């Protein structure tokens, strides 16, 4: 794909044709910045950029923007996750400017889990925009140098714009059209939902390739290693939009409890090795939830280390 439009290190690496590697850190439920810095320290030499989640599962946490600034001050490359649940278009645009003022160059546009999952079940949700409209908004601010209201922005934000895609949600027949729609809205990179059902993902990628979509967007395959058979069952039955095949649960349950975590890492490594061969996969997004110390092992064992210097 053509040359980089933003100063994003992730964009440069992807456009240079390297497989990108991203991971993510959840901010703490308190004010201690060390919580985020320690997680970042564990993965910083093995990834190109680090997502900071935005009040994930609607639990109130230290904000994504402040956490991204902590990473930036460490010399790292943050990806600002932004959900449309909690802010209207004034606050979203304002936070985009705030992030850009710290030269945060990556953003992931999301809808966000419903607030009923979190600690403020009685709160309002905003959803002034949806995730596609947030993509349009940030592209408009960057490319036109204008606010949604039409006024010029002095020193417009310069963000590499990402979004999520879930190849496994229903109905399947609109999964690829939905990707096309996000591309039409202006998305430049995609981080997918955790992939456990590789056959279904392969089918989604095939359909995306047929429509030429893999030439228009960088798709980073999402992976979360399972810590135990219990976690696999939980993900299968309780987490919305997750597709965990029975064979995977069986494989984890088939090894002794104390070895299940290692088996989970092995499965993740095998998945990446298979995905590396899949045409259109341009990188990996490794979400090792509260298990960041395992990211280096996964990256090294899959031959994705050392990371390119951009």
């Amino acid at each position, binding site marked *: 794909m053509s040359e980089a439009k933003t100063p994003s290190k992730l964009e440069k690496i992807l456009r240079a044709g390297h497989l990108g590697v991203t991971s993510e850190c959840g901010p703490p439920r308190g004010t201690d910045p060390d919580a985020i810095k320690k997680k970042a320290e564990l993965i910083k030499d093995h990834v190109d950029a680090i997502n900071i989640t935005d009040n994930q599962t609607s639990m109130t946490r230290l904000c994504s923007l402040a956490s991204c600034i902590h990473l930036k001050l460490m010399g790292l490359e943050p990806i600002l996750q932004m959900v*449309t*649940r909690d802010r209207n*278009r004034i606050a979203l645009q304002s936070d985009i400017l705030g992030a850009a003022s710290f030269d945060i160059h990556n953003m992931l546009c999301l*809808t*966000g*889990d*419903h607030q*009923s*999952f979190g600690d403020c079940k009685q709160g309002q*949700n905003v*959803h*002034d*925009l*949806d*995730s*596609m*409209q947030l993509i*349009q*908004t940030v592209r408009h601010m960057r490319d036109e140098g204008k606010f*949604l209201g039409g006024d010029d922005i002095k020193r417009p934000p310069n963000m590499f714009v990402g979004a*999520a895609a*879930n190849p496994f*949600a*229903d*109905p399947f*027949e*609109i999964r690829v*059209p*939905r990707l*096309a*729609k996000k591309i*039409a*809205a202006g998305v430049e990179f995609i981080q997918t*939902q955790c992939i456990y059902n590789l056959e279904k993902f392969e089918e989604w990628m095939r359909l995306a390739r047929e429509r030429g979509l893999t030439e228009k967007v960088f798709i980073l395959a999402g992976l979360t290693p399972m810590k135990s058979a219990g976690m696999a069952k939980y993900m299968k039955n309780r987490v*919305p*939009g*997750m597709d965990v095949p029975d064979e995977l649960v069986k494989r984890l349950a088939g090894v002794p409890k104390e070895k299940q975590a290692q088996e989970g890492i092995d499965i993740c490594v095998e998945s990446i090795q298979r995905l590396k061969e899949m045409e259109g996969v341009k990188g990996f997004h490794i979400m090792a939830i509260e298990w960041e110390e395992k990211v280096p092992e996964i990256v090294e064992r899959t031959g994705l280390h050392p990371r390119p210097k951009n």
Partner: protein
Amino acid sequence: MIVADKKPIEEIIEEVKDHDKILILGCNECVTVCEAGGKKEVGVLASALRIYFLNQGKEMKIDERTLERQCDQEYLDEIRDVADDYDAILSLACGVGVQFTAEQYFSRPVYPGVNTCFLGATEERGLWTERCQACGQCVLASTGGICPISRCAKRILNGPCGGSSNGKCEISKELTCAWHLIVERLKSLDRLDDYEKLFPIKDWSTDRAGGPRKVVREDVQL
């Protein structure tokens, strides 16, 4: 219609307990259809309150009346000559009726006897569901006749979100994903290509966000 639900009797008792003469005022429109504030419910509530206050040793005059509508001055005028007989009115109309009654009878306290819930329809006896949020700028033409603003928990105009599973919403397995319904409907209309049309950023100024709204129709004004 406007769908309402009965308030718990304890809450109603708390509202009226310091009065001696109350009028329970029903409404013959929406709240009758949704069985929350019609003539029948007025009677049931009046009996329950009479028994309660009798047991409490309190003498309370509780009368019943149901108007054709409480959102219309013409019908509210029907109680003009008796309103002074009461020191409070307990309205079982929707929030519109309660307020309009209070505006007409400014020196009487008017209490709500129902919780006004949403604009909806009767799916079956005893089951009412939401269909409209009165956003003031109808989008149904482009969503296959299914409203994502009232029926999606995140009012997403370019859905579904990633939380939809087996056609159900992430907030409840009993709630069908609005966007699942939209896709099914577009398919049956042979319009699935329309799914890829980006819905532009919505002007919410016609919604609640723009402040209290009014409709002025000079063509029908007297």
